[in-house]
């Protein structure tokens, strides 16, 4: 029994943290957030050099063949540094889609390009965690028609699209009859958008059971999003404790006021068990199939709630300074805010968990 991180995993996380502090400090994040033309290419390049895009890909396709827990640690580090990077879609979900539903030829064609980081793939799955505005995509005879909203990584080179019938399709960004548009969200550290398909040719990912592949994609997306929130919330807690330790009011540091201490203690009490929850949920996706879906739903929903609490409370501890752009704390606040709403709201994720247990 060893419930915790291996020394390799701790090393992976620490390496990543050092790299991100170097290539993606807050000033770099700001530049990306404030400039639509900035694709963040050199951040992804630096992550690619240490093998992040191929983390989950089999060694025979050039990847590192690591597990979902390793990927969750990467997501956590990216969240902690509010890093702009197409990690979840390109390095977790796209390889998974290819592994579960891609033919040998498709795997051979796409995986090496994903592993090198040269190609990025966005994800159009949102209609399956709650379709808004009657959006949705219909697949027929190798062509797609319709609209996909909330496409993750809209700047990607290609997209995995889940059609209404749950089949998956690969579409290059420059496919005929494909229009893409950016959405502006509160979180400018990641780019979402929409795709309109007008009889757009697409390559089906047709192996295996489509519904269970899609379910696995959503579960993995939820756990990665939870891990991202975990990292961001942990950063906000640490920032609040540090700020309280230096900010003086009434002749003493505010960290010595019981009210401020208790706000921080409440954040820590809620957040600390979330580390283990995310670890378990990630590990279960590889090793405990019977619990994986339940834990994925709960990790997503619970981190959304705890993240929201921490984002609010940590901002309060920072006082007016937390409300301004000066410290950039709002980048974490908004990252947590976006994570809450994607891959299904907390209410939706809990209702999915209820259904999975026969409660609803």
């Amino acid at each position: 029994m060893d419930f915790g991180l291996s020394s390799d995993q701790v090393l992976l996380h620490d390496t990543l943290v050092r790299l991100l502090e170097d290539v993606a400090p807050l000033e770099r994040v700001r530049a990306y957030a404030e400039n639509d033309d900035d694709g963040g290419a050199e951040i992804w390049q630096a992550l690619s050099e240490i093998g992040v895009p191929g983390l989950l890909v089999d060694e025979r396709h050039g990847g590192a063949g690591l597990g979902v827990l390793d990927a969750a640690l990467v997501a956590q580090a990216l969240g902690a540094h509010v890093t702009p990077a197409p990690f979840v879609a390109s390095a977790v979900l796209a390889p998974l889609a290819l592994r579960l539903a891609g033919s040998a030829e498709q795997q051979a064609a796409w995986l090496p390009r994903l592993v090198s980081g040269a190609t990025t793939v966005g994800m159009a799955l949102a209609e399956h965690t709650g379709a808004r505005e009657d959006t949705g995509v219909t697949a027929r005879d190798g062509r797609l028609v319709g609209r996909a909203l909330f496409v993750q990584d809209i700047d990607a080179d290609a997209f995995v699209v889940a059609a209404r019938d749950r089949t998956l399709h690969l579409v290059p960004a420059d496919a005929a009859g494909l229009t893409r548009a950016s959405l502006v969200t509160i979180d400018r550290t990641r780019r979402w958008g929409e795709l309109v398909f007008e009889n757009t040719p697409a390559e089906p990912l047709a192996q295996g059971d489509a519904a269970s592949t899609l379910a696995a994609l959503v579960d993995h997306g939820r756990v990665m999003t939870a891990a991202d929130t975990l990292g961001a919330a942990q950063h906000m807690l640490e920032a609040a404790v540090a700020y309280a330790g230096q900010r003086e009011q009434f002749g003493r540091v505010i960290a010595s006021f019981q009210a401020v201490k208790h706000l921080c203690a409440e954040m820590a009490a809620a957040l600390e068990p979330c580390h283990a929850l995310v670890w378990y949920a990630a590990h279960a996706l590889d090793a405990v199939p019977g619990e994986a879906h339940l834990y994925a739903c709960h990790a997503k929903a619970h981190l959304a709630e705890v993240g929201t609490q921490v984002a609010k409370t940590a901002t309060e501890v920072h006082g007016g300074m937390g409300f301004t752009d000066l410290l950039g704390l709002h980048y974490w606040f908004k990252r947590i805010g976006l994570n809450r709403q994607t891959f299904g709201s907390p209410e939706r994720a809990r209702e999915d968990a209820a259904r999975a247990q026969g409660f609803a």
Partner: protein
Amino acid sequence: MDLSFGPRYEAFRHELREFIAAHLEQAPRVTESRVLNPRDPQLLAWQRLLVEHGYAGRTIPREYGGYGAAPDMLEARIIAEEFATAGVSPGISGQGIMMLIPTLLEFGTEEQRRRFIAPTLRGELVWCQGYSEPNAGSDLASLKTRAVLDGDEWVINGQKIWTSTAHLADWMFCLVRTEPAAPKHKGISFLLLPMTSPGLEVRPLKTMTGDASFNEVFFTDVRIPADSMVAGRGDGWRVANSLLGHERGMLGNPNVTLARFNALVELLKRETVDGRPLLEQAALRERLLRIQGRMLALRANDLRVLSARLNGSNAALAAMIVKLEGTELRHELERLAIDALGELGVLYRGSPHLREDGLWQQHYMYFLGLIIGGGTSQIQKNIIAERGLGMPREPGLK
């Protein structure tokens, strides 16, 4: 218990409704961005019309450019309600009208009143409030910006922060330390100064909402005449405090919350997920109803506080909790709208598919700012415990 306003006030309400209806095409709407611009010509013309008819500056004496009516809380309430219901601007608000004019009426010299009140009321003089400093927020009385008398001039050095509208203002009223040897609450004075003063620099502060509604203001040897002071040397804390209570009461206004609640209900009826209206989702509805319960309690509480002011009875605790409860409730209400909208809820200004100009997100963040500003929730709880419940101060606190 009598929830009617009585015939005299209903007549007043009727007259006001007719006035609004008759002038509707001149009136700026609250949904127009112009109402946030204190220099907008249409807004200034509207303000002059309101002053003339006594719907703005109603109780300000005629000799200072007002309407000269006796103070009457019910009239004030009716004015607020009717403009809100019509969705029409109630004229210029801002800190000149809300804060400075009452201060001058209570503490100013006759000369100060004659010089400043009328143009401020007409919107020709825009003011900002220089209170907070980087190390004096919750602990405002420890402010450090100092003014030293040099001949017949005050020389000011230091820094203010969270100064809203400083980038637009003509004048500032501010608190500065003039008596460094006095105890901290006794060494502060209240000064008036033009924003064009040499040595004064304004730097906008962008907030998390993306707006630059606050500023930092830096003073380097700013010189103003010795008679720029309101009340006496060292009276500044007392002058400022006599008005702070009013500001706090406005921050959790339950009538505005009700308007937002109604908008939220419309949203939940109109928006769908998987083709079903959001209002059909029991978990969202349960949250909506919990918010409604708290809101109705605060609305009733508001009537109680108003009534107590009218008849002089005591509802101090009821008034004291409004800012804390009202801002937290609003923050939660806006959160529910965002949650209900799902991914649509994270869209922000400039996005396709954006709902209501991103106001749900903007208010959600702005109300977190209000939870922090004007006395954080933590400071509010201290006040409620100490002044409301009579619990002792922490020992050893300066």
